[in-house]
C-alpha cells in the first residue's frame, strides 16, 4: 500500500528545479504530485511519478542526488474537516508525521493526502484500523 516517492536534493540556485523537471519532461514522465521542503541554502523536491524507477535512473544520470522512499496516499472527503479526520486517526494511535502534502483530483472530485509518518508500517496499520481509504500504488500512478 506504499507509494514510491522520489526525493531530490536541490541547491538553492537559479534554474536547478527546472533542470530536474526538464529531465523528466524529456522522458515523457508526468508528475502526479509534488512538494518542496526548503531550508536556507538547499531544498528537497519530493515527487510522485508513474515509472519512479525510470525517473530515478534518469535523474541520477543527470548528476542529481535522488533517493527513493515511501509515503501513504489516503483519499479524503473534499470538504471541511476531511484532513483532520485522517489526522485524528493517526493522533489516536500516537503516530507522528514527518510531513504531508495534499492535492485535489479534479476529474474524480477527490482530495488526496500523501503522508510520511515516522513509522510507515505503523501508520498503515492505524489508518486501516481507522477505516481510512488508502489508495493502492497503481491507482496513484495512473490518476
Amino acid at each position: 500500500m506504499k507509494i514510491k516517492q522520489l526525493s531530490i536534493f536541490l541547491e538553492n540556485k537559479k534554474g536547478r528545479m527546472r533542470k530536474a523537471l526538464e529531465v523528466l519532461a524529456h522522458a515523457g514522465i508526468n508528475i502526479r504530485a509534488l512538494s518542496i521542503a526548503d531550508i536556507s541554502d538547499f531544498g528537497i523536491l519530493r515527487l510522485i511519478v508513474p515509472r519512479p524507477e525510470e525517473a530515478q535512473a534518469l535523474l541520477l544520470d543527470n548528476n542529481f542526488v535522488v533517493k527513493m522512499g515511501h509515503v501513504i496516499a489516503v483519499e479524503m472527503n473534499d470538504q471541511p474537516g476531511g484532513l483532520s479526520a485522517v489526522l485524528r486517526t493517526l493522533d489516536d494511535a500516537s503516530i507522528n508525521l514527518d510531513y504531508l502534502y495534499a492535492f485535489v483530483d479534479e476529474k474524480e472530485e477527490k482530495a488526496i493526502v500523501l503522508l510520511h509518518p515516522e513509522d510507515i508500517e505503523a501508520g498503515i496499520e492505524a489508518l486501516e484500523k481507522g477505516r481510512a481509504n488508502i489508495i493502492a500504488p497503481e491507482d496513484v500512478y495512473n490518476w
Partner: protein
Amino acid sequence: MIWNEKAECMSKDEREELQLKNLQNVVKRAYETVPYYQKRFDKEGIKPEDIKTMDDIHRLPFTTKNDLRDAYPFGMFAVPRREIVELHTSSGTTGKPTVSGYTKKDIEIWSEVMARGLTMFGATEDDIIQNTHGYGLFTGGFGVHYGAQKLGAMVIPISTGQTRRQIEIMKDFGATILIVTPSYGLYLAEVAKEEGLDNDEMKLKAVGFGAEMWTEEMRQEIQRRFNAPAYNIYGLTEIIGPGVALECPEQDGLHVMEDHFYPEIIDPQSTKVLSEGEKGELVLTSLTRHGMPIIRFRTKDITSLQSGTCPCGRTMIKMDRITGRTDDMLKIRGVAVFPSQIEKALLKIDGLEPHYQIIVTRPQHLDELEVQVETSPELFSDEVKELVNIKKKIENRVHDEIGLRVNVTLVEPKTLPRSEGKAVRVIDKREL
C-alpha cells in the same frame, strides 16, 4: 630495491664530508660567476673560504622567489648560455615566472634522483609508467619522464587532461604506475568509475603524487580508489623540479636526496635555524647543480626533518609531507587556518566526497568561512532534520579541527570545479 645504494645508504660521516666538499664548490662557483651572489655575500661580509664546516651554511644569505624574479630571465645562470640545454619556469601566477636552466649534467642529476624515487615506489624496468604531469615549462612532466627513462621503464607521456583517454590508455596499455596530482587523481578515479573501470581491473602497483599539498586522509582515499599504495613526490622548479625528496614504502616521510639538495628548517618569522623535528619553513641549497646554483632558497613550504636509518635501509634524512605554506595560511578572525586542516576534518566523515571549496568573505568587518561540500547519496536524506544534522555534524568536525565556526553549504554533486592541475581550494573574497 634501492637504485643507488652507495649514495642512498651512505654513513652520516661520509655524507657530511661529501656535502661539505660540494657546498664549498657550489658557493665558490656561485660567488665567482653569478653577480647576484657576489653582491649578497659581499654585503654580508662572507667569502667562499669562510665555509669550513656544514654549520657555516647558516651564515650565507637566503635566496627568495623575489630574488629569482629580479634575475629574470637568465641572471642566475652560472655558466655561459650555450651550456644550458633546457629551460623550465614556474607558473608565474603570482608575478613574473622564475626561470630554471639546466646543463647536460643537471639533467643527468635530475634523472638520477627521480630514478631513485621511482625505485622507492617499486618501479623497475619492467614497469609501465603513466605520467599525467604536464609536459612543458612545468617541471613535473619532464622530471618524471627523465627518471623513468633512466630506470629503463616504459613511460606513457600522456600529460594532463583528456581524462577519458587516460582511462582508456590505462586499461589498454596496462599502466602499472600512475603519476598524478592528488586532485587530478581523485578526478581520474571518479571518471574511471563512470567508465566502468573497476579498481581490481586496474593493474596499478603504485601511485605517485606531487605538486600539491595533501593530507594523510586524502592518501587513504586515493589508495582506496586505485587499490594501490600512494607515494609522495616533492620538488620545486627553482631547485630542480620533482625529485628533491620522495617517499619510500614506509610511507612515513620523504627521503631528501641530500647529497644533491641540502635541507634546513627555519622559523619563517625570525629566520632562525630550527633543530631536527621542529616544524618550520624548508630551506634548500642545491649542492651539485651546475647551470644555476641555488643557495638557501626559502621554499615557503612547512615541514620538519628527521634523520636516522629508515627501516627501508636508506640513511637520507626524511622530511614530513608538506603540511602548509607560509603563504597559504589563512587568517580567519585572527586565527591561523590551513586548508589542509579543513580537508582533514571533511575526509573523516563517511560518504563525503573529497571535493570541497573554501570561501572566505568579510560581510560586516568580520571574517566568515564557508565550506562548500558536495552532497552524495550517502549524505542525502529525505528528512529535513537529518540533512540539517549532517550539515551541523560537518560544521562541528571542522570547528573541532580549526577552532572556528564555519558555515557548511551542501551543493549538488559534480558542481565544484575539478582541476586538471593544481586545485583551487580557497577563494578569498576579502579585500586584505
